[in-house]
């Protein structure tokens, strides 16, 4: 695969250097007609059987016209053979540092006009005697060999370590400008290194976000996707810093294939888990199954990887389309994923080197957009929670509550100053307790009841009544979301006129770690529906907040239920799993 990388680099070089030409050298009758200058257009091989005593590959005089003519890509696998190729050298058109670039799987030794120029591994007649060579060979052609006219490149090759039949084991066989080859390899590897760096950093950042900020599954999946992508690109780049012998090639291909499988699985999972999609388990299973099926399609590793990623993008597209249709989300993701699919369809061949990187950039962009949007909404949620906290305090220090109480005080001061002092005492008690409670997400039920009683005292002062709260059940060691009962009772007064003959009732029940509270507040008529307005909004927001906080550690469900009972009580029921301190 990396050889393809080199081919890309080579294409890069030849784009700059090629110029087709005609050249003949009639002096060598046995040599074929070679039209293109400085290229091997006629490659012939002859298999060597173990019986052959003397191997004749390199003499210029050998008649090779009857040898098998092949394309370099179709080098025989698990064989031992001779190779001969003539090149018409035109020094005028040759670059300054002409070198021979050979990329193939096998052990080899090459000769230029019957002079040894390179040895790669040790050619052998069997797997036992062969010592595998590295994949790419770059050799400077001796200067005295570079004269105008035909020259012979010959070699002896063994490929016994290929093992399982591959699509192709010959990648590149050409004369290149060494310097420009290196600079283009450098350019491409800088790009790769850049992507690897980004992927690793994103992976680390989102691990940190996951562990230190918010444990969202989608953050973890995104981090793993980036990590896997970085590994794919790194293994791909391994060639440049690991001069491994060709028998490891298949392993490396397998590794990339495996990593691609993982990445292909993570990509649709990300969209699946970042959306509020229904039936996550079934969809996950279907995706996994289809990817497994795709991986059994017998193709080369490279094509399978490409196919897997294709399947993965299709799944992601379907998930996003679903989101667009059913939840009215924006269409950016669908557009970008479709673009990636078209791109992948058009150039599937250079998938790992090229396609993956570009698709990766596209996809990561959509993921980042989705994540940032999610973070934004989480931030809004956090702000809302903060608002709830101040809301509680504000609701009671609201001008109208305060002003009504002050009006009362003015009258008391003028007519009954001692009562005024008492009233100020309960009023300040209420504010003090509320200030303490508003800082807490949850409070002891007994404290909440104290607050409720205090509020009833204030209301008793204001309406010259004797309101009462009757408790049934054991209130000890129960935590509740702060101030919900208080809000409910307060709400009751803003919407009703209540006679003191009718008491408030709280029924507490604790069973199997689940707490149930039933609050009955007197109500004069069905028309005066209690629980409209700010009070109810506050209670709902409060419950949602506690719910969200506790979701991290346990499965907590709070349910509320309000109804109107025939005997003129408004009944509010709360039930929730025991809160931990």
């Amino acid at each position, binding site marked *: 695969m990396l050889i393809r990388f080199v081919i890309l680099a080579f294409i890069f070089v030849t784009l700059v250097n090629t110029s087709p030409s005609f050249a003949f050298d009639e002096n060598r009758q046995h040599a074929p007609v070679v039209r293109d200058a400085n290229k091997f257009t006629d490659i012939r091989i002859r298999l060597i059987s173990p019986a052959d005593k003397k191997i004749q590959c390199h003499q210029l005089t050998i008649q090779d016209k009857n040898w098998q003519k092949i394309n370099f890509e179709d080098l025989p696998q698990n064989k031992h053979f001779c190779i001969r190729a003539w090149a018409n050298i035109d020094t005028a058109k040759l670059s300054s540092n002409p070198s021979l670039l050979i990329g193939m799987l096998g052990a080899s030794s090459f000769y230029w006009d019957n002079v040894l120029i390179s040895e790669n591994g040790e050619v052998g007649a069997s797997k036992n005697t062969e010592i595998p060579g590295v994949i790419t060979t770059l050799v400077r052609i001796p200067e005295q060999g570079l004269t105008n006219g035909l020259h012979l490149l010959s070699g002896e090759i063994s490929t016994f370590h290929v093992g399982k039949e591959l699509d192709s084991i010959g990648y590149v066989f050409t004369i290149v400008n060494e310097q420009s080859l290196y600079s283009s390899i450098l350019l491409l590897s800088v790009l790769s290194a850049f992507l690897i760096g980004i992927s690793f950093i994103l992976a680390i950042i989102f691990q940190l976000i996951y562990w230190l900020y918010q444990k969202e599954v989608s953050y973890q999946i995104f981090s793993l996707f980036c990590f896997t992508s970085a590994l794919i690109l790194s293994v791909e780049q391994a060639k440049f810093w690991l001069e491994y012998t060709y028998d490891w090639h298949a392993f490396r291909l397998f590794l990339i294939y495996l990593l691609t499988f993982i990445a292909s699985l993570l990509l649709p999972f990300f969209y699946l888990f970042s959306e509020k999609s229904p039936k996550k388990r079934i969809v996950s299973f279907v995706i996994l199954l289809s990817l497994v099926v795709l991986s059994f399609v017998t193709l080369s590793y490279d094509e399978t990887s490409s196919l897997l990623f294709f399947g993965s993008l299709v799944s992601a597209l379907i998930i996003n389309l679903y989101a667009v249709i059913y939840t009215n989300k924006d269409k950016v993701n669908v557009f970008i994923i479709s673009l990636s699919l078209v791109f992948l369809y058009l150039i599937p061949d250079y998938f790992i080197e090229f396609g993956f990187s570009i698709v990766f950039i596209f996809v990561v962009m959509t993921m980042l957009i989705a994540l940032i949007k999610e973070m934004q909404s989480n931030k809004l949620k956090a702000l809302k929670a903060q608002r709830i906290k101040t809301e509680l305090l504000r609701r009671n220090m609201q*001008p*109208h509550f305060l002003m*009504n109480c002050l*009006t009362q005080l003015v*009258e008391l001061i003028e007519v009954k100053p001692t009562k005024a002092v008492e009233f100020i005492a309960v009023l300040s008690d209420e504010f003090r307790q509320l200030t303490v409670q508003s800082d807490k997400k949850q409070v002891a039920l007994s404290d909440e009841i104290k607050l409720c009683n205090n509020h009833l005292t204030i209301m008793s002062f*204001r309406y*010259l009544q004797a309101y009462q709260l009757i408790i049934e059940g054991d209130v000890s060691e129960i935590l509740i979301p702060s101030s919900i009962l208080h809000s409910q009772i307060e709400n009751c007064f*803003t919407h009703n006129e209540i006679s003191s003959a009718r008491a408030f009732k709280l029924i507490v029940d604790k069973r199997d770690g689940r707490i149930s509270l039933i609050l009955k507040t007197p109500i004069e008529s069905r028309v005066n529906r209690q629980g409209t307005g700010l009070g109810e909004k506050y209670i709902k927001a409060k419950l949602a907040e506690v719910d969200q906080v506790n979701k991290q550690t346990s499965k907590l469900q709070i349910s509320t239920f309000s109804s109107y009972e025939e005997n003129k009580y408004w009944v509010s029921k709360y039930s929730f799993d025991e809160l931990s301190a």
Partner: protein
Amino acid sequence: MMNIVIVEDEPLVQQRTLRLTLEILSTKQPKIICFSNLDDAEVYLAENSIDLLLLDLNLMGRNGFELLKNNVAAAYHTIVISAYADKAIEAFEYGVLDFVAKPYTRERLAKALERLLESAKRSYYGCRYLSIKKVGAIELVAIADISYIQAEGHYSLIHLNNEVDSTALHAKNIEKIMQLLPANFLRVHRSYIVNMNLVKKLVIEEGSRYSIQLTTAQEIPIGRTKYQAVKQYLALQTL
């Protein structure tokens, strides 16, 4: 004798309003009835004619303003006493005579009641709408749409500057309506109030009788004693 109704749900505050009103209006020997909710008060109001409603109104929701529209459409004046001071301007726009914010002093209540006694005194803000009782519903008429108002016994006939509904009858008499209107409405005659923004010209007729011609082509007579005031107003406008 003066008939006053107080609607206030908190007993101590009700006691305060009652006590202070009795003190302030002691010379008038008012007859005051208190209610702790609006439902009971409305039953009473439907069957008795009164001069003033002192109303504690929870103006938090739209509902509060619906109630207010109902009361300002009536023949009596309404003074709102409420903790929702931020809603005062809106309340004025619907035509309350005054808005007393809680907590209130004796002086502030006295000022509001004074406004009732001296019919020359206008409300702080002119209202923007007049609530008019129609069959089955209260309708709001924009003040800007009124061209002139004509006294019609205890009622007032409101002439509108629009094609659809040219007149409407209001339950308040012309003196009470005048107290609510903004400064561009002038009492030009014992029986007429005119929207001065619509005056086209002053017409002098034979026998030194004057009248106003409106842009809507109607002619309104000017009372002998009102002529100077009308002239003065128009002179100020043309400055």
